[in-house]
């Protein structure tokens, strides 16, 4: 018909982004291929802070692994420990008592609150909205000091044990929680019109970083990233720990863009406050630890919902005090393929907001690459 073998040649610019970059809290290297201002390809490059935690899990005593797993991530550490304990509990059959389950829900929602505040603040910073960044992080401080009041630590709570919890809360503590979280709720209500209506935020992220519904499943997105594309994928749906009794419904936005993903996080802040409120009301009395000294012998998969999405633990024990295999898949690792597609077709100036819209937690993800010996 016409020239069948015709071809076109184009020249591209390749430029690096990271590993050290003002908008990146942690090191990741993204290599962008751009056609003038338009991004045509992204190649992620990881492996700057590899710590070999999965291997260390096989060398440690399985009980000491709790503290190791909590150090996989600096933000959502509590949920890492909880997931590891849950997997071991599934193998040994030492299910946590009901009160411990409620305590775990409360503390993991607190972890989610402070993580989402951190993320929303960094998002505001990436847009260039300095005052919003300051305000959000000031509110995060309330939650961190609440953690300190109840657990003695601001970030690393370390209250998990296999079969339950290490610490309990009494009536006076519940009162402190109610007061402080009431304060947080008032602050969040004041921030709501800013996030939902501010023209600067909308202009910077509406229609940017498109992740269509079909691709979100296809590329295996998790957490607010997939919920911002209209799919109610939330591991809390499974009803693990006490979530099954708390009338949980995932928050979903249909916009498929950066703005939707940010709104999912903002609405989940309010949802977390509700969940803590309900959990404290429904929490039964009783023991908090189901002691079981049996060594794990068998295989279990445990999945929980981190602030960034689904966390996946595969634990295999062989009847000794050391594990055969412990595989950790963190949510950011699953969100990197969608991030690569999201960036394509947008402009270089949109990179910071789009990268922040998946709330990357690189230190979680970094464990996955194994540096070659001698490097």
């Amino acid at each position: 018909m016409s020239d069948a073998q015709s071809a076109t040649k184009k020249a591209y610019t390749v430029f690096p982004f990271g590993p050290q970059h003002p908008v990146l809290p942690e090191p990741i290297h993204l290599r962008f291929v751009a056609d003038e201002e338009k991004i045509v390809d992204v190649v992620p490059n990881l492996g700057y802070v590899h710590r070999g935690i999965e291997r260390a899990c096989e060398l440690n005593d399985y009980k000491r692994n709790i503290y190791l797993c909590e150090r996989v991530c600096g933000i959502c550490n509590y949920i890492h420990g909880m997931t590891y304990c849950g997997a071991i509990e599934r193998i040994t059959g030492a299910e946590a008592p009901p009160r411990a389950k409620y305590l775990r829900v409360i503390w993991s929602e607190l972890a989610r609150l402070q993580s989402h505040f951190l993320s929303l603040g960094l998002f505001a910073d990436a847009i260039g909205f300095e005052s919003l960044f300051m305000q959000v992080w000031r509110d995060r401080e309330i939650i961190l000091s609440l953690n300190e009041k109840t657990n003695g630590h601001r970030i690393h709570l370390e209250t998990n044990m296999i079969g339950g919890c290490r610490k309990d809360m009494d009536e006076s503590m519940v009162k402190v929680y109610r007061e402080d979280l009431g304060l947080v709720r008032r602050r969040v209500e004041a921030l709501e019109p800013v996030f939902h209506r501010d023209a600067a935020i909308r202009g910077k992220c509406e229609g940017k970083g498109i992740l269509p519904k079909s691709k979100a499943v296809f590329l295996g997105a998790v957490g607010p990233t997939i919920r911002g594309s209209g799919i109610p994928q939330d591991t809390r749906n499974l009803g693990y720990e006490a979530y099954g009794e708390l009338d949980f419904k995932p928050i979903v936005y249909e916009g498929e863009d950066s703005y939707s993903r940010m709104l999912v996080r903002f609405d989940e802040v309010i949802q977390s406050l509700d969940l803590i409120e309900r959990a404290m009301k429904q929490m039964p009395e009783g023991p908090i630890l189901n002691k079981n000294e049996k060594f794990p012998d068998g295989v279990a998969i445990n999945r929980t919902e981190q602030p960034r999405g689904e966390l996946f633990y595969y634990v295999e024990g062989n009847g000794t005090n050391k594990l055969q295999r412990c595989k950790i898949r963190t949510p950011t690792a699953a969100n990197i393929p969608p991030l690569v597609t999201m960036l394509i077709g947008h402009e270089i100036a949109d990179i910071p907001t789009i990268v922040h819209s998946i709330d990357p937690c690189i230190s979680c993800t970094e464990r996955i690459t194994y540096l070659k010996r001698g490097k």
Partner: protein
Amino acid sequence: MVQEYKVKGKTEDVVADKVDMFIKINDLKAQNARMMTITARDLGTEVEVIYHFERGFDVVNLRLKTPKNEPIPSITGVFPAAFIAENELQDMFNIKVSGINIDFDGRLMKIEGANETTLLKPAVGPMPFIKRFYGRCREACPAMVNAPKYIRQVVMGDPQGGYNTHIEQAPLPAILGRVCFAPCEEACRQEKNEEPIQIRFLKRFTADSMPSLRRGVKRAELTGRKVAVVGGGPAGVSCAFYLGMMGHDVTVFEKEKGCGGAMYWGIPKYKLPKDLMETEISARFEEAGVELKTNTEIKELKPLLEKFDAVFVGIGAVDSYKLGIEGEDSEGVIDFREILTTVNVRNGTMNVGDRVAVIGGGNSSIDAARTSRRLGATRIIIYYRRTEREMPASTHEIQGAIQEGVNIEYLTTPVKITSGKPLKLELQHMELGEADSSGRRRPIPIKGSEFTVEVDTVIKAIGQSVVIPAEFGLEVNRQGRVVINDNYETSMKGVWAGGDVCFGPKFVIEALRDGRKAASEIDKSLGGEGWPESSLDLEEYVGRPMNLSEIRFMEHVQVRELDQEERIMNFDEVELGYDEYEALREAGRCWRCDWNE
């Protein structure tokens, strides 16, 4: 004692080997499963690789055992999200994963200087420039429809997008998905395995995925220019649609009570349901704002040219050739148009008796034979003067007819019909001689081989001819067809023509192409830029699926059909089309040969 955990969902273990692994993984993809991660376990001499998937609330573990030092195929062709986990496997367990593809949207970028820690491990070398081919299917299509693209859109779960892609070059995918003779399938590379990708059914699937067939697109800015289209056949519909989309006011004049032309009267209902045809044509006309005037016969072009800026003539080939033998006008000798029109247009029936002889070897003779089978005839013989190799009817059609009990006799031609009840049809055997102008070998009668059969009805189906009313004043050639130049313009200024009226009886897709090209030329003459020609789509990124060695040997998905006993009883549609799962499986077999590394 393991307690039952109170959570939703369960864990399912599936054991696979390297042979059936992709079948299972493709099944999971069709069930909308989500790739989670890959775990590897060291078992001494071999490694167990566990692929974790989420399906609904459940976890599906696909377990694959492989000896160390033996490569395993990458699943990134099916689940691109697996590339991080597969790189991890390579690094931590020294398992070689062959063919990791980072083809998110069809790109494979090679960048120089990728270091050890790069997750993607791209090949080192210069960055390739983008190179595209048309693809063999697309080159074979008369209208150059972008078949590779809509197949990919089906794979990506966007059949509506595929429907739109098709309409850029040919406006009636739902109809073509049922009646097209699919030259694309003959050209397909999978044809080497004698199982080409069923592109026609995938096309039909894109249309079936939108029941109303309405797309909600906007026309270009109105130009205020008026165009008349004479004839509502495929060429006319195509021309009117594209002109309307380019902003012109179009009026279609149709002689019959409904649009569709040869598709309306000539294609049996068991292939193309008439209400579907009307829905699709009216959907296109609504989108393009076309005004339709049925039961309006145009006698002369001059008055039209006074009211309109341009006229397109697409009146088709509606007259039949004569057999030219004695007794041709006897009672009981009918034209194929008569029987098809009676059944398709008037929804009527006719008595053809028990024994029917059909003369001719085209698709229309097969249609006539299959229609008479449904009207009650049991002994039907098609007489064709050449052999099966020269028969213009498509193989699929011939197979369908034979399945329904139709006999075909080759190298036979009628010489005389004696009237009476029953009719006496005298026939003569032939042999093949030298090749003629159409490239087929000329049949030569064998003297003394005459024989006679008794039949109730003789159906003539030896082709259609073009008859142009003399009042049109258009220049015609020796065969009575309208003469046009390369721009589809006729000898009369302001009059364009296309379709069967220029080229004789051809396929629907060719008429649609003529309509589109003529519309483009008319637009240019009215000051527009014309409809964009079918060209390489450089914006779409295409990649090669890396499990090529797998898909080469995948069998095609058979389309479901009505039972043979059931279908000769009525005029219901014989082919039932693909459902979503079948369409995904079939579209996943595409090689993407329009892409070059």
